[in-house]
């Protein structure tokens, strides 16, 4: 029944009576689950386009999507955004990379050794609760207005979620599994390698994704406050110059960057934690 209805709807939409080629039907069927999932997004963008072209919204403030997309394509083609994309990727990449290099080993150590955790926890809680943005002026005074302060403020915001989640992951290791490994002769190091680290990985990935979100947030903030290059800067710059399509193009670029980062992390996690996604008996 449902299939027939879909078919008829598809035919009606084509406004003719010729049978649909199987390719179209197959495509429609393949898209259906996504259609459901992204229906809200599609409707949102559809309304946007409609509202802007029909003048319900002021197109000078909210331009129609096709103009934004054109602005984006133009900017990408003539390379006027290339430098900004490059520098933004560099800033966020270095900061996020530094967070990984510092937070994961430190978190593993703090989670494993009560003494290290007890020593460092109060100061880390203090740091963590202090907004990175509030500290940005301090970082600028310390490191200058250049790259260092920007990277550092991004790092500051992204390191804590990863650190905290790594610690939690280690501490949540099932003590019964540790005991089991011990009975089979595992040394402390072997227990760490074979039990503690693998069992902390899901939590570490939660941290990585939170950390990636913070990275992007602070990237934009830092670039808006005191930069003359970067995607975040271009958002502000385009706005000053009344180039709203370009402004939105830069915003979309940032959103895309966030989605891509998250997607990549989910992909890596799925590969690493294949055991999690398996069906139960």
């Amino acid at each position, binding site marked *: 029944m449902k299939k027939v209805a879909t078919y008829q709807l598809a035919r009606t939409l084509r406004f003719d009576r010729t049978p649909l080629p199987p390719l179209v039907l197959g495509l429609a069927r393949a898209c259906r689950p996504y259609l459901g999932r992204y229906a809200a997004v599609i409707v949102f963008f559809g309304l946007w386009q409609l509202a802007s072209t029909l003048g319900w919204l002021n197109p000078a403030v909210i331009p129609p999507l096709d103009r934004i997309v054109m602005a984006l394509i133009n900017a990408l083609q003539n390379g006027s955004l290339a430098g900004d994309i490059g520098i933004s990727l560099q800033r966020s990449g270095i900061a996020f990379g530094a967070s990984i290099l510092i937070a994961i080993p430190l978190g593993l150590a703090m989670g494993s050794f009560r003494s290290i955790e007890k020593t460092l926890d109060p100061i880390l809680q203090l740091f963590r609760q202090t907004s990175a943005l509030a500290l940005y002026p301090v970082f600028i005074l310390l490191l200058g207005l250049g790259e260092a302060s920007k990277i550092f403020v991004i790092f500051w915001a992204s390191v804590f979620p990863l650190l905290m989640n790594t610690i939690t992951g280690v501490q949540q290791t099932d003590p*019964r*599994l540790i*005991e*089991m*490994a*011990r*009975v*089979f*002769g*595992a040394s402390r190091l*072997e227990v760490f390698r*074979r*039990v503690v680290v*693998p*069992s902390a*990985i899901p939590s570490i990935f939660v941290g990585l994704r939170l950390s990636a979100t913070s990275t992007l947030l602070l990237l934009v903030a830092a670039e808006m406050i005191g930069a003359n290059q970067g995607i975040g800067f271009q958002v502000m710059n385009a706005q000053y110059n009344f180039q709203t399509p370009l402004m939105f193009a830069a915003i979309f670029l940032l959103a895309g960057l966030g989605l891509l980062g998250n997607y990549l992390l989910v992909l890596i996690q799925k590969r690493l*934690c294949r*055991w*999690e996604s*398996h*069906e*139960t*008996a």
Partner: protein
Amino acid sequence: MTAMAEGLNVSRVNKSFALKESRLEVLRNIDLEIATGEFVAIIGASGSGKTTLLRILAGLDQADSGTIQLNGASVQGVGPERAMVFQEPRLLPWLSVEANVAMGLELMGESRTDALRQARHYLDLVGLTAFYDAYPRQLSGGMAQRVGIARGLAISPDILLLDEPLGALDAMKKIRMQQELERLWREQNITMVMVTHDIEEAIYLADRIVILSNDQKSALQVMRVDLPRPRQRSDSRFVAYREALLDTFHLNDTADADATSNATETTP
């Protein structure tokens, strides 16, 4: 106590735990000799110290005093000659079934390929040939427990210690696993010490049944089960052992160490 050269010799083992303001005496002057290749079941009410005794044998806990010797050598801490099957399977969820079984062998220094080859052999033994690559969460409770048993057997220990390994299984699976355990014990020629709260399970499997009581003043009671194998639960002598064991529990206060021999004599 005279030290036996062969087998496991537990002598005057005491164990208590510190509570908030007092000490809880759990094991008091435990003497127990287990011959090589013997199947010993430990039964007792919950809280009577069965797990504690097994953990001490495994080397996971330390006795306050007393000695444990295996084939004449003093036992300190964990060791590859003693393997443990826990009440919950305790499998590493991120490792495949075969990798779980292989882990003990790898920790003993075997190469990964050798360890995996032997792991598969033991998985065959417990009837899990089709599940080498499965992940623990894909297994049923009974299957997971078999993996735990395979993992214990794989390191070729002298003694396999089992803590209520079938406690979580339903009645049908339990009986099948009891048969399998007996077969493995026979084929592998291994000493098994198994904690259970199931009296029939103890009679079905054990050469001797050790009864731990909550009452610290009475000594350990031991009952020998003289029945040909495989044992039949409906056998009148099986039933008589069951009655005798039940009596032992009901008559805990008046029974002394000799109740064991009395019990066997009560056979109708």
